[in-house]
Structures are given as C-alpha cells and as structure tokens.
C-alpha cells in the first residue's frame, strides 16, 4: 500500500499545526462560528447532537494494521470506545471533544492518516472497489489513480470552495462494487480499440434530495490527461454550479440543467485549452512509481494445494453457511477475501469497538498480509486469506461477534447514524435497523430471501444511500413524528437505478412489518432463483403497493419530506 514520503508527511504535519491554530483562534473568539465552520468541516469535524463528530479519511478504504490500531486507540482515548465505518469508506467518531481534535489529528498523522477534506464543499475522499487489486474481473488496479487524485485534490487552491461537496470514485473491474454511478465523477478503467488502457468518464451522479444516475461524457480519456480533464470538469462546475440554493448546488443539477451533452461540450472546450499544460500531464513514470506501492504481497504458490477447505465445508454446516456468504473469490488460486460483517443483529450497522478493531488488526497481521479494506456498505475485508486458514479465521471472528453470515442478505443493511447522533437527521435509522434485526432473526428465512440490499437514511441527505437500495428507507419528520418513506427497485451496481416510491410514509413501529409484507409478495411471485430486485423489475410496483396498503382502513398521512439543513 501507499507509503508517505517527506512531502506527504510534511503536509499532514503542517495541517495539524494549522488546524490547531484555527481551533485556538475559534475558542479565543477570533473566528466566529460562521468563519470557523467551513474550516472545521474541511477537516471532517461536525458539530453534532451530543458532541462534535470527526470523520477520518481512509483513502479508497485501504488500511494497514498499524493504522487500524490507531483507529482503535482514538476510539478508546478520545471517544466512547467505538467508531462508525461510513459509506465513503471512512470512519466517524461520535464523541470527541472539539479541544482534542488537533491531538487526534496529530495521532493520525503519526500513522500517515488525516481528516483532510472529509467534509465541506471540496473534493472528498476518493473511493474505490473494496476488491481492488484482488478481483478477477479487474482490468487494472485503480488505487494508483486514486492516490494520484488524492494528492492532486488535497488543498487544491482553486477547488476548495466549490458550490457543494464533490465525490470521485475510480474502479478497474467490470462489476461496480463502489456505487460509481451515483458519484459526481466516476472513472472506469477501460481499454480502447488499440488495446490501451484509459478512463471512461461519468459525471453528475449523486444522491441527496434530488438523486441522479450520472451520465457518461467521455468514452475514453488517455491516462496522461487524467488531471487536466479533472481540472476542466471542476473548473466548469466551480464557475457555473449554482450557489444560490444549497439543495441545487451539486454538479448533477448543473449537468442535467444544461443537459449532459452541453455540459460535456463546455468541459471539452475548457480541456482543449489546458490539456497540454506540462504540469498537468501525468507521465508514465509517476504512474509506474505509484503502481509499485500497490503490488501484490508475496503469495504462497502452494496455497491452492490445500484440501482441508472443501473437507471443512462438508463437515461443518455453520462454517459452510458463513463461507457461502462472507468469503469471496481472489484472483490468486488458493486465496480468498473474507468479509467481516459489521452487521451483527445487536450492532448498529458499521460500528466496531476498539477491541474489535485491535482484534481485526491482529487477524490481518496473521492472515492477510497486514491489510484491511473498508467497504462502502460498511463492512471490513481481509483481502488475502489463504483458504487453508479460513476455518481458523471463521472461528476467531465468531468469538468477537464478527462472523454473522449475512453479507448481501437483508440484515446487511447500510444505515446512517440518524437521529441518534446526527444533527441533520429528521428520524432515527439505528432503531429501524434494530427493529428489522428483531423481526428477521431467522437465518434460514434470510438465506431463502437471498440477495437484497436494504439501505436507509435518516434524512434527505441520503448518507445511507436509500435511493439505490433494492428497498430504500428514508426517515422523515412530520410535525415531530418520525415517518418512513419506502422505495423499491433502486440499485448502486452496474444496473444502477433510483428506487420508486412505494406510497405514503409508514409509521415507525410498522417499518419491519411493511418490509415483511413486501417480501411476502416477492416470495409469492418470484420465479426460481430470481432476486428481489429482478422480481420487482418484472412485476412492477402495483402488487407491492396493493399488499402493503391493503388492510389500512385510512391511509397514513401523506408525508412531504423536509430537509433540515
């Protein structure tokens, strides 16, 4: 993985000093709240319901075990002993004190980490495929480009006060595991007709109150022009994105107000003028230099000679169930990727305790070449586990409640912190996750339902990706009462789609029951092995709607969503 040199280390160290001074000036009254807010946000610090919330960047989700131990240490020393892994592959702490934030940043800097641009109207953490580097369907490892973009975007002087936040994802695989189509910019490594590798470029995806699937504006971009093309997109957005209304300020609104073709034309026009600027040309030496950081570990070439794995699968049903859901293929024979579920029934989705984090670091040291990856659906991955070790890994994970065999199943929900922590939220999400876990506690039923993605957000900002859930749940506030709007048919993968609204909002205590009714329709209507999403796409909304609202004598109050920020 990437290692800081003196330049990188100097920047994070200088950032700590700068933020320490900004915090001091705020506490001394030299900076007003309005002046300090964008500064602290650009360092991932929110003022939340109970305390500030600090979001720490995990570039493209990749962590060393040393870094994971530092995250555990921070949870223990400055917080209440846990952290929340987020849909941007970052981690959030819900209880730090503002005064201690500079110390936390200094601790992070000591392990080559930071919180730079994890919030604010700037270019955010670059996200990627959690199987980058190990996926069989990968054309090229996207992480060197993620790192190039991380450095280019860090404190970019022109693009630090954009109209709104800006999210970029890069993938190299054919299967989209990173929700690329709902990013402001999505970059796909592709081959052109000459067999060279470059990028296909998407812009204008986004969630929030007006969700859009992005549009492709360039089919092939040579690698050497990556940075100039990014500058062209960002410059057009910085100049023409709306600033009068924060709900209309994302690039998606500009792209779709102009039309993707016109937007693409503006970008190309700008790009023509800057594409040959020497300082923006990415030379192959730099690509090679960064790629060298992401080479594979020294894999054991005899790993595939193991015969114990199939034997254990046959002998231990519980192990086989876990392996069936939580163990994924690896491009090297004899190796597997293990997904550590942070979705145990009693666990707020995505949360891990300091003890679990330390434990996972130990596991990665022993079994996965010191690497851990955060997924955008809030689980962790041990990317390189020898199949001979899987049984031991499973047993150990189970002892820490980290082996719930539910990856891709109904209880593998994406969930934002919601009203319990977040000051933007209109409604709770964690209590709904709990309610769903309580109702759907029969593992056989969950396995029978099969692949289904439930995603929920406590407000229109859609941190919990509800628009792209097969079943989406959005919490809204109606005169002080929490209601939940359900959507069906969303997807964040290659077949990306924004979900359709089921109907009037559902009362809080009825959410899990409503999901039960939706699943009744699915079970009744599905054709053999058909996923929920495919059944929905085949039969449409009507049967679901009729069944869910059938027995309600009077319809629930129609809820109009109101965002609170």
């Amino acid at each position, binding site marked *: 993985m990437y290692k800081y*040199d003196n*330049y990188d280390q*100097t*920047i994070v160290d*200088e950032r700590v*000093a*700068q933020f320490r001074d*900004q915090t001091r000036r705020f506490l001394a009254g*030299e*900076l007003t709240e309005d*002046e300090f807010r*964008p*500064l602290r946000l650009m360092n991932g610090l929110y003022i939340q319901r109970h305390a500030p919330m600090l979001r720490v960047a995990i570039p493209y989700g990749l962590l060393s075990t040393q870094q994971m131990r530092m995250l555990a240490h921070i949870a223990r020393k400055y917080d209440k002993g846990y952290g929340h892994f987020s849909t941007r592959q970052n981690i959030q702490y819900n209880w730090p004190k503002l005064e201690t934030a500079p110390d936390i940043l200094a601790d992070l800097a000591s392990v080559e980490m930071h919180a730079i641009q994890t919030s604010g*109207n700037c270019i955010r953490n670059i996200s990627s495929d959690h199987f980058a580097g190990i996926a069989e369907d990968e054309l090229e490892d996207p992480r060197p480009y993620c790192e*190039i973009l991380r*450095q*280019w975007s*860090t*404190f*970019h*002087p*022109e*693009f*630090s*006060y*954009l*109209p709104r936040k800006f999210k970029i994802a890069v993938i190299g695989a054919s299967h989209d595991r990173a929700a690329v189509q709902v990013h402001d910019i999505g970059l796909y490594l592709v081959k052109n007709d000459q067999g060279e590798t470059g990028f296909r470029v998407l812009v204008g995806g986004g969630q929030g109150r007006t969700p859009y699937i992005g549009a492709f504006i360039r089919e092939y971009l040579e690698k050497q022009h990556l*940075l100039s093309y990014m500058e062209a997109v960002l*410059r057009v957005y*910085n*100049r023409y994105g709306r*600033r009068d209304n924060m709900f209309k300020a994302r690039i998606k609104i500009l792209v779709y107000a102009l039309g993707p073709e016109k937007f693409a034309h503006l970008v190309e026009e700008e790009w023509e*003028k800057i594409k040959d600027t020497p*300082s*923006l040309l990415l030379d192959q030496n*730099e690509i090679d*230099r960064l790629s060298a950081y992401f080479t594979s570990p020294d894999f054991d070439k005899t790993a595939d000679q193991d015969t114990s794995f199939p034997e254990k699968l046959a002998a231990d049903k519980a192990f086989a169930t876990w392996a069936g859901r939580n163990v994924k293929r690896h491009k090297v024979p004899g190796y597997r990727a293990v997904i550590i579920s942070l979705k145990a029934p009693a666990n707020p989705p995505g949360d891990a305790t300091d003890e679990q984090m330390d434990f996972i670091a130990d596991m990665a040291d022993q079994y996965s070449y010191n690497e851990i990856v955060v997924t955008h659906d809030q689980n962790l991955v041990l990317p390189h586990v020898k199949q001979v070790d899987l049984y031991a890994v499973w047993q150990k994970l189970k002892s820490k409640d980290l082996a719930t065999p539910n990856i891709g199943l109904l209880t593998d929900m994406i969930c934002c912190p919601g009203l319990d922590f977040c000051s933007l939220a209109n409604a709770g999400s964690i209590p709904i996750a709990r309610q769903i876990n309580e109702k759907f506690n029969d593992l056989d039923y969950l396995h029978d339902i099969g692949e289904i993605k439930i995603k929920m957000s406590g407000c229109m900002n859609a941190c919990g990706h509800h628009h792209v859930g097969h079943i989406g749940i959005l919490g809204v506030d109606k005169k002080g009462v929490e209601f939940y709007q359900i959507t069906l048919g969303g997807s964040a993968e290659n077949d990306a789609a924004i979900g359709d609204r089921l109907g009037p909002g559902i009362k809080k205590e009825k959410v899990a029951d409503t999901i039960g009714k939706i699943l009744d329709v699915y079970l009744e209507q599905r054709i053999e092995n058909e996923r929920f999403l495919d059944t929905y796409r085949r039969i449409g909304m009507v049967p679901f709607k009729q069944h869910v609202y059938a027995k309600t004598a009077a319809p629930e109050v129609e809820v109009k969503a109101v965002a609170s920020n």
Partner: protein
Amino acid sequence: MRVIKNNRITDDEWQRIKEIDVVEELPEGKVIMPFGYWQSNRDKLIAQNRKYAVCVNGDIETEEVAKDIEHFELIALEFPIFTDGRSYSHARLLRDRYGYTGELRAVGDVLRDQLFFMQRCGIDSYQVREDKNIEDALKAFTEFSVKYQTAADHAEPVYKLR
C-alpha cells in the same frame, strides 16, 4: 488604508467605488470602478489613454474582463462571502490563460484562512476585512511548505520533484 501586497503590509491609495451611476464622471485619482461602469464607458475611458482599475464579481465572465486587460493596472476580484469560490477560477484564468500581469486584488469577505489559496491562484494583493487583524493574516502564507499540485503560482507539483 492598509493592504497586503506581495506578502507585506503596505499603505494603499486605491479607493474602491462600490456604486456609481454609469452617466456620472469617474472621480479623479486612483479609483477602482465597478466593471459595469467600465463596460458602459469603455470607449470614452480608453480614449483618455490611462490605466484603470476595475472590480469584478463572480457573475461576470472572465472572458469579458480578459478582452480589456491591457487597460487595467489593477483588477479587484470580489468575494461577496468567503465561501464563494468562483473568483479562484477567475484569478487562474486571468493569470494562466490571459496573461494578466497587473495587480490582482481580493476584496470583500477576505479572511486569513483563505489567503494561501488565493495566492496560489494568482491573487497578489489582499484587502483583508477591516475588523480582522491584518498582521495576523500574514501568517497564512507560511503555513504550508509543500504543494501537491500546480496552480497560477507555477509551483512544481510534488510528483515532479520526487
């Protein structure tokens, strides 16, 4: 009035006229006029064969300003609020694309914590908001010694140094 120019605090004689009717005469002396006034009186002013100073806000297309840069010795870029980042792009275009070499001044909601970015985009003078400590603002230029990317300051991007 004191401004920061080339990383030093200096007394400055420019007077910014925020509003002026297009039919009024431009006052004598060193005045910064709204760009709209320039546009309305362009031919008349050019005939006087002087150098002028204009103030441009984010709504004005940089390309419009660029047409006349040979007549300007100072261009003020207005930050109506410090979070409005359009003028960063305008500054870069004036410097990098249109080769403007005169004074480029930040006016309006100009605060210490944005000066470093402004400088990197090609702004070289700063009218720091009056209620703020201008000496303190000078510290902004020394907070970072490393720049990952290039901008109007022509900083060598870090990767070319490695």
